[in-house]
């Protein structure tokens, strides 16, 4: 039932609109048009847009019921690897939504912005401290935009030195899809580096790949195969020696918060997904925030705006103040409401709490990994510690029982667990990337192991159960192929086809 199906001509949630506002004549009676309000007839809309016409109760009920069809952290264990679905403290939401914050116009003068600028400045400082970087800009609107900013800074750096032949960015094959896509957007070529059998980057391959064309490398460490690359120093030397820079994809920062700092590992630039490590809401697909941190030599290139402090006062720095900046990435400088939430979260954690994030996310991941191993599941990297996530491969189950990872995933939904990330990273066949996060309790993890074990038994005995899963959700298995073939991307009023 779409909201449009509840629509009837003339139905209104009237209290919502200004009651006194006259409806311009033109839309009341398409024939009779006047310019009394200064809007030329030719530029006016001829027909009212086909938006739904519903009552306030209908809208409230419709969207309340829709919400209930979602899995979410607030309702389910959601071990979606690389996405860090941990608890989003409710206080962050209510405090970032205080009227004073919501009402502030982005172009308000500094004289009327000191409260929020203090928060942003302190957040910049805290992010510097936890990453070991020299400068931080909060501007990027999500991780991928942080990546773009990051590789653009790498490019700006080389260009500024006249080193304009460095047009290749190295990306491990385990990397998230945004990494190569971002590099391309910054005008680079992308070269893939294979991952070794132990999960670390194949350092020999890397050595062979670097050269005068190397602008840099984009690394996630711990990587998306869920291990900390033990050769990180060697990698750093190799790339730096070749004249390249190191980019740190901070999506997995949760695993090492307060334990090891990208700056100390030798990275030149990093983005952080605040909607992961700093627990801002994922919101069914965003908003995110992807601040970037840089070493001293990249500092001039940071995207604007930045907040600086001068005595007791905070000031913005924009294009004019930072001529070498790679520029502006959104009109108004970033997802401020998300930055506020991250600030509040960081303040509640403090230094101790940050270390605990790493400790307990590692504890949960390694415990879950140990239990699944004992339960007979095959680990992709059995010799390694898990970081905050790890990979199970179901290739045996696929071969022996004729079910695949997606079947497993869908059946997990029936048991009330959101599925881990499936088929990513691409290099491990039939894989599940599992990230429990530090905010889940042991009983949830144990329950997940039980469900996995049960499902494997089902796979053996009644594989159909899996193949037809889910059975207990608002819909049965959806036909993705059909969705792409018979594109239906928007509701249309009956008369127009």
């Amino acid at each position, binding site marked *: 039932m779409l909201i*449009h199906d509840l629509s009837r001509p003339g139905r*209104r949630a009237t*209290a*919502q*609109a200004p009651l006194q506002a006259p409806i*311009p004549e033109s839309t009341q009676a398409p024939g009779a048009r006047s310019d009394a*309000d200064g809007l030329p007839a030719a530029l006016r*809309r001829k027909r009212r847009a086909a938006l739904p016409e*519903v009552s306030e109760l209908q*809208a409230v009920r419709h969207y309340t019921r*829709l*919400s209930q*069809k*979602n899995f*979410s952290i*607030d309702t389910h264990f959601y071990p979606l690897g690389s996405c860090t*679905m941990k608890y*989003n403290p409710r206080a962050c*939401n209510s405090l970032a*939504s205080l009227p004073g914050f919501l009402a*502030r116009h*982005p172009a308000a003068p500094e004289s*009327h912005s000191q*409260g929020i600028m203090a928060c942003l400045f302190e957040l910049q400082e805290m992010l510097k401290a936890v990453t070991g970087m020299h400068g931080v800009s909060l501007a990027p609107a999500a991780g*991928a935009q942080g990546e773009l900013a990051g590789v653009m800074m790498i*490019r700006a750096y080389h260009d500024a030195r006249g080193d304009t032949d460095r047009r290749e960015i190295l990306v491990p094959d385990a990397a998230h899809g945004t990494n*190569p*896509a971002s590099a391309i*957007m910054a005008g680079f070529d992308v070269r893939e580096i294979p991952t070794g059998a132990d999960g670390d980057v194949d350092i020999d391959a890397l050595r062979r790949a670097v050269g005068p064309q190397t602008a840099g490398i984009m690394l996630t460490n711990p990587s998306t195969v869920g291990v900390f690359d033990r050769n990180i*120093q060697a990698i750093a030397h190799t790339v730096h020696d070749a004249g390249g820079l190191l980019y740190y994809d901070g999506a997995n920062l949760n695993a090492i918060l*307060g*334990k090891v700092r990208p700056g100390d590992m030798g990275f030149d630039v990093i983005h952080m997904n605040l909607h992961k490590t700093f627990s801002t809401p*994922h*919101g069914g*697909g*965003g*908003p995110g925030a992807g601040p970037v941190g840089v070493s001293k030599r990249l500092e001039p290139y940071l995207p604007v705006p930045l907040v600086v402090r001068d005595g007791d006062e905070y000031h913005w720095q924009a294009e004019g103040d930072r001529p070498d900046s790679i*520029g*502006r990435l959104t*009109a108004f400088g970033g997802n*401020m409401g998300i930055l506020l939430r991250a600030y509040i979260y960081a303040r*509640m954690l403090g230094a101790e*709490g940050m270390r605990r994030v790493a*400790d307990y996310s590692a504890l949960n991941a390694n415990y879950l990994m*140990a239990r699944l191993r004992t339960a007979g599941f095959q680990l992709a990297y059995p010799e390694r*510690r898990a970081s905050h996530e790890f990979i199970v491969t179901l290739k045996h189950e696929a071969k022996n029982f004729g079910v695949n990872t997606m079947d497993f*995933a869908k059946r997990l*939904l029936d048991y009330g667990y959101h*599925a881990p990330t499936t088929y990513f990273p691409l290099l491990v066949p039939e894989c599940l990337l599992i990230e429990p996060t530090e*905010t889940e309790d*042991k009983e949830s993890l144990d329950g997940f192991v039980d469900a996995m074990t049960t499902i494997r038994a089902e796979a053996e005995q009644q594989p159909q159960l899996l193949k037809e899963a889910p059975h207990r959700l*608002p*819909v*049965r298995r*959806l036909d993705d192929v059909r*969705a792409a073939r018979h*594109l239906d*991307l*928007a*509701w249309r009023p009956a008369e127009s086809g």
Partner: protein
Amino acid sequence: MPFIPHTEDDVAAMLATIGVDRIDDLFDEIPPELRAKDLDGVPAGVSEMDISRVMQARAREDGQPLCFIGAGAYEHHIPAAVWQITTRGEFYSAYTPYQAEASQGTLQVLYEFQSMMTALTGLDVSNASLYDGASALAEAVLMAVRANRKVKSPRVLLPRNLHPAYRRTVRSIVRHQGIELVEVPFDRAGGHTTVEQLEAAAGGEFAALVIPQPNFFGVLEEVDELTDWAHARNALVIGVVNPVALALLSPPGDWGTAGADIACGEGQPLGMPLASGGPYLGFLCCKHAFVRQLPGRIAGKTLDADGQEGFTLTLQAREQHIRRSKATSNICTNQGLLVTAATIHMALLGAEGLERVAAACHANSRKLSDRLCEIPGVEPLFDRPVFHERALRLPAPTADVLRSLAAHNILGGFDLGPDYPELEPALLVCATEVRTDDDLDAYHDKLARVIATRTQARCPVEPKF
């Protein structure tokens, strides 16, 4: 431990299962010399109560000035239901709907949003959001260049009366992708862009023309004429529109003979608080022919194994997680929660409600600019029709005037000087439907006083600008 559920017993049992003695052992693959020492610079943790106190003080600190700034972000009334529902845990704390069956709530919202945006813009398809209006325009520019099969030029015409922050954002983002942005000047009398100016600026071939409606000055463009002009040159047309304005103004899909090809813009007016500039939401719609060039998530309707309707992300082959370096964009996380808010907002207002809002804003801004123009030396900067925002010429330096007003807790508008030195002293003002007559009076009276002081102080004789 805040947010961590582990008891000592849990930890002991879990370590035993793993087979290590201490949690720190789990980090033994990290080279010891890399291990972080202190987190100096991160203060000690505080309780929820303490941080509440801090944030309440900071939220209060900046007062709630009376705001007459528009310039791309607009204070509208947001029905209370919008955010009470949007922040329900099931929407707020869900991820991108990768498991469609467990995310029908979000997916259906995306589909409904796409339906509403196509209705508003008059185009065939919509994606499910981009970061904001400015970055959406950058994506639209890239998309247009990719999509234009007739003209292989990398040149795109960007009018100077487009929002300056948009122009800068587009420039930053497309800089390394071989796009050439050609600035088109505006008519000094009307504030709009004329075909003659386009003709002159275009020179040779170009892939696309960007048309803001209304433009940054609030001035209405002759969209039909401009669209036909560009189409006649085989260029694509990208409309940059305010979704609330679309309730009254001709939608991009209706522009000219064939309609604009792409429409994008800032979704903030659809239920997002000003919130210092974000999170907002960028929208991007296009004709069906270009759907495979659209960046960002798209939800589609399909059937489940029982033949029931359901929703799923579709056309994922465009996206980075499948296509990696060949994707239409690197975009991944974007503005799902804001899409939820916008969808509920539009459902509550409906087309008529949006019309009322648009009409009320327009009437209020007209009233404001009329009143302000009663003040000697204040006059409209342009003579063309405007929507909902107006550029004024001032008889004193804008920055000084704004500073004086701010001292009285009035944010008097957007200073056009820094971005358009040629127009100085000029001010862009806006009064949405939330401003009352008393508010307008207060502004008028203060501005009259400020200007009187300034002009008298400096010019014993009536100044003529």
